[in-house]
């Protein structure tokens, strides 16, 4: 399998107040995979994504997106933060939040116009939220809010999607809707990287997986490396999941 490398992380170390949260991470993510990052709480999963995206500054190491630093490749990357990271009482509508996805391509000062609005409406339709476009965001359920975030990422029409726990606090219907969209993205040749909590669904949803607990434990195709051995190494206890054949 000789694929392009979409994301390459070299010797990445990140610390909060001098305490390392990520320790010497090397990681290559091939183009076109749908990858889960799994690991216990405090393993540094969100930190890894945020460091790749330049939101956090590492104390050592480097990151490249298709061979170039992130700052040069912003337009190729879309990011879905954790739902809890924003104030949903903010005075704005669902459509407006999705429009924010277009801000990156606009750059400083330029304002969104009809074209951006059209893109946002299309994205809302894709996640089944068109009917809620004028709704104030606090009036949406948790699942609907997550769909809005997903639509905002879709609008960016990126090559690589980073998502921080998109399934947290959403109902079963939304979870299925989201995973179907992620699978569609992969089919279109995009790379999707998801911080994921529910180990049971890893084999069903993803084709690639990275085990992380401050250090990188393993990374590779789910069918090769998603086993009790790696789970135990990552979670520290004798971990067993039944993998459906």
């Amino acid at each position, binding site marked *: 399998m000789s694929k392009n490398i979409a994301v390459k992380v070299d010797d990445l170390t990140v610390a909060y*107040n001098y305490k390392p949260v990520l320790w010497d991470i090397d990681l290559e993510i091939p183009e076109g995979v749908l990858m889960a990052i799994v690991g216990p709480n405090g393993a540094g999963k969100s930190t890894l994504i945020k460091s790749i995206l330049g939101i956090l500054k590492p104390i050592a190491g480097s990151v490249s997106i298709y061979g170039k630093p992130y700052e040069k490749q912003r337009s190729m990357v879309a*990011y879905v933060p954790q739902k809890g990271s924003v104030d949903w009482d*903010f*005075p704005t509508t669902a459509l407006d939040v999705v429009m924010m996805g277009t801000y990156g391509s606009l750059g400083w000062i330029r304002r969104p116009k009809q074209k951006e609005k059209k893109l946002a409406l299309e994205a809302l339709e894709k996640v089944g939220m068109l009917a809620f476009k004028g709704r104030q965001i606090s009036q949406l359920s948790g699942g609907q809010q997550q769909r809005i975030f997903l639509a905002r990422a879709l609008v960016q029409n990126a090559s690589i999607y980073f998502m921080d726990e998109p399934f947290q606090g959403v109902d079963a219907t939304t979870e299925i809707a989201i995973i179907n969209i992620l699978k569609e993205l992969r089919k279109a040749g995009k790379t999707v990287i998801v911080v994921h909590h529910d180990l049971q669904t890893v084999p069903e949803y993803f084709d690639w997986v990275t085990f992380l607990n401050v250090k990188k434990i393993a990374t590779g195709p789910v069918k090769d490396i998603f086993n009790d051995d790696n789970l135990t190494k990552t979670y520290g206890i004798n971990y067993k999941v039944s993998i459906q054949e």
Partner: protein
Amino acid sequence: MSNAQIEIQLIASLVAIACAIPGTFLILRKMAMISDAISHSILPGIVIGFFITQDLNSPLLILLAALTGIITVVLVERIQRTGLVKEDTAIGLVFPVLFSIGVIMIAKNANDVHLDVDAVLLGELAFAPFDRLLVGGVDVGPKSLWVIGSILMVTVGLLFAFFKELKVSTFDAGLSASLGFSPVVIHYGLMTVSSVTTVGAFDAVGAILVVALMIAPAASAYLLTTDLKKMLLLSIGFGVFSAISGYWFAHWLDASIAGSITTMLGLLFLVVYLFAPTKGLIAVFYREKQQRIEVSLLTFLLHLKNHNEEVERHVNHLREHINWQKVRAKTVLELALKNNMIVIDEDIVSLTKKGNAFTSKAIDYIITNEDSQIEDMKDDFFLFRG
């Protein structure tokens, strides 16, 4: 109205607008208290600038004071980042120190000049028209009008240019950073505007009113709208309204203008807080009562749907069985009847076709965890609300 009166109202209104714009973003960023800190801690900057220039409206003074404002923000953030104290504690530590330095400097050196603590705290709006700006010997208006007018124009220009950046970094700093709009740059930009505005408004209205003008109009607007642009416009409107009505209130009482404007701001917020259509106290109270009754109604309908046996559906038995008091049982029963959800035949209650459909749909929503949909459904089914 005399010229001086018009000028005072004009200055007060411009100050209100200049404060409402950064104030709106401070509220949304949950940083209201930082405006309090800035308004006090710029004092040493003002005093030093005043010693150098001997002019309260000098650009140097504004620059120095704005710098002290930024230093305040940086100090607060530094102390907070140690993780030893929380943000509010850090604010409480920083600004009294800087303010007291200013107070001591005034007391030691400026006893004989036009700069005293009272003026700093409450401003001297009434005297603003006496300090004229002369260009080539020609009187072009009060100096503070020009100062605050210039600051306002810059603020409005920045707002129009960077509205989208301000919005995205306020709502979602993570996304903003990943898109290339540095939240740090925008944060310090907003802090600089807040500091400069505070200094410009300071001479006219004093340290306390500046805070009131930044926070109260935006806080009132926040309760009334769910649209950022409307929130900005409402804040501006509220600010100007309080400035002008406050002026006339002071005129009538023959009292401090700054004090009267602040009183108006307080009253305005109180009225909005009580009567805002969806977030107001009365609306919330009414809605909770309505929801309580409608939940009871749903409970009652579910009970009817679960029980076919007549003994379970007898009017009296219901009262005992569901364990409601007489009044509540009666209210719920009447609401169900009014909405054609039930029929009562010889004291036996049965669901109507409509009641049955409503209940089935509600059950569907409850078991699929889509409870929020029930509210939307009520609009289709209810002729009368609880």
